[in-house]
């Protein structure tokens, strides 16, 4: 009885394994195709180079970045992409700063040539995604911003208030912000 069970179980297991390997290939190819279709048009032929990858640099400033995705174009140029979940379908200046900092770190760590533009994919609460092409700022501008932040935290210079009143309306520091009366 045991021999009979084993004689059935082994070929069945082999068949299941064979089928799963055979079916896996088209499924993976389909996922690749769907991913390419969902990308911005100029990234469709690009190769996904990094995702959720951390790059830290200590020169010229100490910077820690984790990029969502980086694609290598057929030309060899690397393009960064950042996913953002938000209620409005647009890119903000803060996204440009984040991608520019990632660009600086990636270039320093890998010596890859990173494009001066990147993509912010805004995902709205209904799950819809739209990519926004943004122009990144230079490495010098990122370094200057890091220095400015250090100076603000050290109390050497006064911080600027938010450019938009909408930011203050939803800010968790509203009750203790010295700027709140004016807004």
């Amino acid at each position, binding site marked *: 009885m045991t021999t009979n069970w084993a*004689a*059935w179980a082994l*070929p*069945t297991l*082999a*068949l299941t394994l*064979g*089928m799963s*390997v*055979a079916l896996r*290939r088209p*499924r*993976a*190819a*389909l*996922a*690749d195709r*769907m*991913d390419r279709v969902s990308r911005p048009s100029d990234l469709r032929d690009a190769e*996904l180079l990094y*995702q*959720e990858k951390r790059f*830290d640099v200590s020169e010229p400033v*100490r*910077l*820690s970045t*984790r990029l*969502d995705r980086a694609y290598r174009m057929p030309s060899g140029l690397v393009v960064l992409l950042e996913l*953002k*979940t*938000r209620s409005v379908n647009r890119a*903000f*200046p*803060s996204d440009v*700063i*984040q991608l520019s*900092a*990632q660009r600086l*770190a990636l270039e320093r760590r890998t010596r890859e040539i990173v494009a001066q533009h990147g993509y912010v994919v805004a995902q709205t609460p209904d799950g819809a995604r739209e990519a926004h092409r943004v122009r990144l700022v230079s490495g010098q501008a*990122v370094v200057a*911003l*890091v220095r*400015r*932040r250090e100076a*603000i*935290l050290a109390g050497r210079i006064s*911080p*600027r*208030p*938010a*450019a938009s009143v909408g*930011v203050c309306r*939803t*800010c*968790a*520091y509203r009750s*203790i*912000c*010295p*700027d709140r009366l004016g807004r």
Partner: protein
Amino acid sequence: MKKHATPYRDVVSASELAEMGVCERRVLLAHRHGPRRTLAQRRALRRGLRAHKRFHRDGLAANEGATHRCCPTAFASVGRWFVGLCTRIALAVLCALAGRRHRSPDLGEGG
């Protein structure tokens, strides 16, 4: 030296730096009083983490497909031949076992 709610680190993350583009006063307040989030912001953060997880999973699946696409043709055909061989052998064994089970009462009667 002044004490801060957030321990001072000279290393800054890209997302912390991005806050400078939102409100510099908020950067200073977060540094002095520690991180604070409204309920809506906490929910948005959780939603963001879920979306990132899914985005990462989709990327992994797509990358696997791209690897298959880049697989050299000769290697891929050997793999397909091997999978086909295993499947045929398994099917043949199962058919043989099923046939033997079906025939056994006849054999018993004949004997």
